């Protein structure tokens, strides 16, 4: 049969028309689409046995309870621990993506000396040499842990000093330390029993204290209620998250919080709205009005609304003696719903913010925020899990990341009750890391390991037979048959909760109205993170939405 040009055209047209009514092209298009979306180089989740373990977040000193989902030996998801007595299942937004931090591109993976790769042996030799030549100062950002005890003992043994970089919440408690003679680390806020909380710029609903503690109290007792059981009065120049949700927002001029506190105290004392007698501030109400931008009447109204629903508690954003003095005038120190003493510690810590003179070496623990720069001429050994940009440290030493290290969790800085928990290591370290405590223990055999100290602390709590162990249910420690059982439960996520302290035992003597402190710099929402490195998914909060401002990079 002869094939003509016409036949070819007819067949081609027929084939083209026929193809259109068959599913073949659509199926091919669909398959190509699927193949091109699943190339072998596209990462796939690891598969393996899945289990849920309990632990605690140790990225800041608040120690929130975690439920960690683990698959094939790696943490694959984080949620809050509902049975935690303080956080009750809440976490900060950064916590939900923290399991990805260990693979962050800015993870420190090797020892660095002046920006060049070095070794642990060289770092240890350099530190040993410095120790022999002069005094050593150790800086901690999360005091109270077993690891902190190691750092403290080492510093003391060397004749050096142990210093602490305190959080803004801890610094706000500092004035009471000098007026009462008690360490601020033993004081807490009795938020649960307060009826009026007046915040002088403290981000009460935006991560203040232990995330979840106040937000849940507010949600239960204030949210959406016009006359709430818990009144939150937010004093702040701009409409912050806390101000937007507060019962009352008072807009004042930037940096005039101390003046407003003094003005309120003056009204309270002059109009005899409080039974307390105290030193009257030198600042007149008219002067306070001028500084704050409020009217004198508005200050008087605010003072009256403070005492309308006691107990009232004033909370400063940072160290502010005037706000602390206002609490003394209000009778809120050592009282229910105010500033209370939660335990019986006697130790005060030296602040690392002052000049560290005559130190040959300064060792900085990984719990210290990255943007902390010691004022010293000594050689600096800086432990960190993540590098946050340039640094003035002579040595950079890679530390354990998220959930890579066994550690204990002491009472959070603002808590009204004492707690104790143990955070087991749930992730394998992804690089050659050491903790500052291990580093020091290798130099001095007499320094105990954190694990031994944790066992010792557990034994001490068990022997005292006080408090409860909170897991699925709360059990009094007397009902736990043995120390082994107690430790087993603590290691699997239970929390020891101390007996509530009796009210009293804290008395502040205020001889004169304190001089106003210079306003503390307003910290960026991410600057409290141990390093200015955020979990990658935090980008959803600032780059892929307008919810927050982008974090500032280290200014070091």
């Amino acid at each position: 049969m002869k094939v003509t040009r016409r036949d070819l055209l007819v067949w081609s047209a027929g084939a083209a028309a026929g193809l259109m009514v068959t599913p073949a092209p659509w199926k091919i298009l669909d398959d190509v689409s699927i193949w091109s979306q699943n190339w072998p180089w596209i990462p796939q989740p690891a598969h393996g046995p899945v289990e849920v373990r309990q632990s605690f977040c140790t990225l800041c000193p608040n120690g929130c309870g975690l439920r960690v989902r683990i698959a094939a030996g790696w943490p694959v998801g984080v949620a809050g621990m509902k049975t935690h007595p303080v956080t009750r299942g809440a976490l900060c937004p950064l916590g939900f993506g923290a399991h990805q931090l260990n693979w962050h591109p800015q993870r420190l993976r090797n020892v660095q000396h002046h920006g060049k790769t070095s070794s642990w042996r060289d770092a240890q030799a350099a530190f040993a040499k410095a120790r022999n030549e002069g005094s050593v100062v150790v800086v901690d950002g999360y005091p109270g842990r077993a690891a902190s005890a190691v750092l403290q003992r080492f510093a003391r043994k060397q004749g050096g000093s142990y210093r602490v970089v305190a959080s803004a919440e801890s610094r706000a408690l500092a004035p009471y330390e000098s007026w009462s003679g008690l360490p601020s680390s033993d004081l807490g806020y009795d938020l649960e029993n307060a009826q009026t909380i007046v915040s002088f710029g403290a981000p009460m609903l935006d991560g203040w204290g232990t995330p979840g503690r106040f937000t849940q109290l507010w949600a239960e007792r204030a949210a959406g209620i016009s006359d709430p059981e818990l009144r939150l009065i937010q004093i702040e120049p701009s409409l912050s998250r806390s101000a937007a949700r507060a019962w009352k927002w008072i807009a004042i001029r930037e940096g005039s919080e101390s003046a407003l506190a003094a003005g309120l105290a003056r009204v309270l004392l002059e109009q005899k709205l409080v039974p307390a007698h105290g030193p009257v501030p030198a600042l007149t109400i008219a002067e306070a009005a001028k500084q704050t931008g409020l009217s004198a009447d508005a200050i008087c109204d605010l003072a009256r609304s403070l005492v309308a629903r006691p107990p009232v508690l004033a909370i400063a954003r940072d160290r502010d003696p005037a706000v602390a003095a206002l609490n003394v005038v209000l009778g809120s120190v050592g009282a229910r719903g105010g500033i209370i003493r939660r335990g019986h510690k006697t130790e005060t810590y030296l602040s690392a913010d002052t000049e560290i003179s005559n130190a040959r070496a300064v060792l900085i623990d990984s719990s210290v925020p990255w943007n902390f720069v010691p004022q010293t001429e000594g050689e600096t050994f800086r432990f960190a899990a993540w590098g946050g940009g340039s640094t003035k440290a002579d040595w950079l030493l890679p530390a354990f990341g998220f959930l890579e290290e066994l550690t204990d969790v002491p009472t959070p800085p603002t808590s009204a009750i004492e707690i104790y928990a143990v955070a087991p290591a749930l992730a394998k370290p992804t690089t050659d890391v050491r903790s500052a405590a291990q580093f020091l223990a290798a130099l001095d055999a007499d320094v105990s390991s954190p694990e031994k100290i944790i066992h010792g602390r557990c034994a001490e709590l068990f022997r005292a037979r006080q408090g409860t162990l909170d897991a699925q249910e709360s059990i009094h420690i007397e009902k736990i048959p043995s120390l082994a059982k107690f430790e087993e439960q603590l290691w699997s996520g239970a929390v020891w909760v101390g007996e509530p302290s009796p009210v009293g035992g804290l008395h502040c003597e205020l001889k004169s109205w304190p001089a106003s402190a210079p306003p503390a710099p307003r910290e960026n929402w991410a600057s409290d993170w141990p390093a200015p490195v955020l979990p990658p998914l935090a980008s959803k909060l600032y780059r892929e939405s307008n919810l927050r401002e982008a974090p500032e990079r280290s200014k070091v």
Partner: protein
Amino acid sequence: MSARYGMVIDLDRCTGCGSCMVACAAEHNVPALPQATARTGLTPMLVRKVSNGREGADRREVFIPIMCMHCEHDTPCVKVCPQQAVEVDKDTGIVMQMPQRCLGCRYCMTACPYHARYFNWWDPAWSPGMEKSLNPGVAARMRGVVEKCNLCHARLHAAKEKAAMAGKREIDPADYIPACVEACPTGAIRFGNLADANDAVSKEARSPDAFRLLARLGTAPELYYKSKESWVRALADASSGGTPEVQHG
């Protein structure tokens, strides 16, 4: 018995912390790509800040979590999809998106009145090793398809599996809680079965303070919002209300 899963979001309780956004992204293996912006990122749960448009002491702000509304009637995205990649699951009321069927034409994005759908522009990528932290219950997000909230369908599957293993036909409600609900520190996002008149969430959805966004369109979303503030409730039907200031994410 068929369920009709839905949510009530109490805007008076939302502090705009963003925990729901991060928890949602972690649950669904959404990568944090450096090139993603507020326009091009994948945010199945997006919290928007809205104000009453005033300045100074009269200014008020509220945070509105926006996600797929799981419309029950005349679901706009289902109607326009040429690939049948979107359908309403009759047993759950969940609007399902099947990425394997999606060709990425984005008709559904145009049709969605809530702007709750996102096109996935890039192949998923993580820092070396970070793929070990991915949720094994959910696939990595595919490039070139449209994505949206599926009410954590993987969690529903897991709950059904657990019930089946126990020889039960119905799941335990405690086993099926979406990631955003679990993450919310103030309990602002509540989840339940709207078909069950005795369910607490179902009761809340019928309270006088509850409202749906753009209810006049008649799409009957399964997502309800709640607020005692009248200016916030006025936002529900934005075109007929005032002109509140909405900052788009």
